[in-house]
């Protein structure tokens, strides 16, 4: 008898030990931080010089009007003595990383623990905290993702089985993604509002609009991935279309599906945030827009950071689910 191949040899092909991956990541983060801190100086130089002038420091040129027409770098090099507040100005165009982190701390942990409306004092999440707004956004993201994934999978099954659907649905699915979502989102909200739907649903619809497409494309590819031989084998069993779908096409499509879901969940988050921009009723999108109305750039950056972290966590969660599923299916050692 031929011997079974050793399963161990397959598992070890995974690359570096975990701790060795850390230095490059940390190095990258440090480099980005350094670039950021450097960029803060020219970005905020005009405001910093104005404040310094008021405080009695001599700046050059002395007239604010003259300074307005000068390049930022030129001002930086002419006034190196007066730039002390670059990283701590009140209303910076570009806040320094530590200012963003302080804002992040203030609007999450500090607000909930010590704020009047925080969870410790009031028993509910404060509507001024990013935790609350992140959960609002997450709600719409999940609902939209669910609708988008189911819709996408359903359309893909239809497209694979019906030539008419293949010819009619696919071009529209592609066209739908060429319309900029920021242009479409307010219309979706207005139209749905006019028929009495508001709140969570319109945001979820925008999320679904963005997330169904990668699922359609990935699933169509996956459902069509069985080769001619595997389809012939099914024919020799006189298998029904339903059998071919459940026993061959769907299992074959799982790896493709997960690749699509990772894109779809990130797109869902973007959709939810875009859906929150026109309606100032909570969510990370609303926070970002409010921050830009009131010149609170640190607030925008903090909300951005939370959104990015959420996206990373969501994609990571899908990847973990993928690993578990493929391992259970025996398609991964």
């Amino acid at each position, binding site marked *: *008898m*031929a*011997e*079974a*191949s050793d*399963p161990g040899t*397959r598992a070890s092909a995974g690359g570096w030990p975990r701790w060795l991956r850390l230095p490059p990541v940390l190095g990258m983060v440090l480099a980005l931080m350094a670039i950021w801190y450097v960029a803060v100086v020219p970005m905020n130089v005009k405001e910093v010089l104005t404040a310094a002038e008021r405080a009695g420091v001599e700046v050059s040129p002395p007239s604010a009007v003259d300074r307005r027409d000068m390049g930022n770098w030129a001002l930086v090099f002419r006034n190196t003595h007066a730039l002390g507040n670059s990283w701590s100005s009140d209303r910076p165009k570009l806040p320094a990383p530590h200012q963003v982190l302080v804002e992040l701390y203030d609007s999450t942990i500090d607000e909930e623990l010590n704020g009047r409306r925080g969870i410790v004092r009031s028993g509910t999440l404060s509507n001024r905290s990013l935790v609350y707004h992140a959960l609002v956004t997450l709600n719409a993201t999940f609902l939209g993702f669910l609708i988008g994934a189911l819709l996408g999978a359903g359309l893909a099954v239809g497209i694979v089985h019906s030539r008419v659907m293949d010819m009619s649905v696919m071009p529209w699915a592609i066209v739908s993604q060429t319309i900029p979502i920021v242009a479409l989102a307010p219309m979706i909200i207005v139209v749905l509002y006019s028929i009495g739907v508001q709140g969570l649903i319109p945001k979820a619809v925008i999320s679904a609009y963005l997330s169904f497409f990668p699922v359609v494309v990935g699933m169509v590819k996956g459902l069509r991935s069985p080769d001619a*031989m*595997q389809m*012939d*084998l*099914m*024919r*020799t*069993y*006189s*298998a*029904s279309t339903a*059998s071919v779908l459940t*026993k*061959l096409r769907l*299992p074959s499509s*799982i790896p493709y599906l997960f690749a699509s879901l990772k894109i779809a969940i990130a797109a869902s988050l973007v959709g939810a945030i875009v859906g929150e921009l026109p309606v100032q009723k909570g969510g990370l999108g609303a926070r970002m827009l409010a921050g830009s109305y009131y010149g609170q750039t640190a607030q925008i950056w903090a909300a951005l950071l939370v959104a990015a972290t959420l996206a990373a966590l969501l994609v990571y969660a899908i990847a973990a689910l993928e690993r578990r599923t493929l391992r259970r*299916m*025996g*398609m991964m*050692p």
Partner: protein
Amino acid sequence: MLSDEEITNWPEAETATAAPVIRADHLDLTFQTNDGPVHALKDVSLDIAKGSFVSFIGPSGCGKTTFLRCIAALEHPTGGSLTVNGMTPDEARRARAYGYVFQAAGLYPWRTIGRNIALPLEIMGYSRAEQAERVARVLELVELSGFEKKFPWQLSGGMQQRASIARALAFDADILLMDEPFGALDEIVRDRLNEELLKLWDKTEKTIGFVTHSIPEAVYLSTHIVVMSPRPGRITDVIESPLPKERPLDIRDTPEFIEIAHRVREGLRAGYEE
């Protein structure tokens, strides 16, 4: 569904009946391609008797695989007639008349060996208990008992191909159609599988149609060797093997074996020179 009696009697199918299981009469098949029509089969007439082991040999493009696919209703002839168990190939397929083994094992990577073999049984609606019983039986037949819970990637190529043969045997088809099943395997594994296939054929008394490129393989396995030639695909010779049913591997060194191999080679050459 099949009655219990038929299932228990399965290994001792009757062999003596003279009526051919597969009968091709002036079969023609022309593919319409962009470069004009391709004559894949021309005027192919052949009777395959129950319990015989028929090999189809010939160069690429001679239509041997196409003929096998016609029997399996995977291709549809454009002329002539073809019956399987007295039915059209389509009806025969619906009556589960044959199992088909492809060149690649084609096992589903997400199913264990046992569940791969149960696949046709699930599709055909066998009960869970019967699925388990049949899977165990065919695994023993191909000497893979104990590998039921393994996944395909844990098995060697030869073992995977044996599992795919087991899958074709799992339901009670009288006919086994094999399209170069050992073509991708090395010669040592191929020899052993050839020997096992003969034992299996002896035990189950199935009718086997076997496509191959290899002259020794065809001569070693078959009761009948069908020599085919290309453009258009047609039969040039049908050789009935005088070799005994009991065939140890070293029968390949006997003068009879060498003589048949020679005749096959002559047939192939004649097909080329025409």
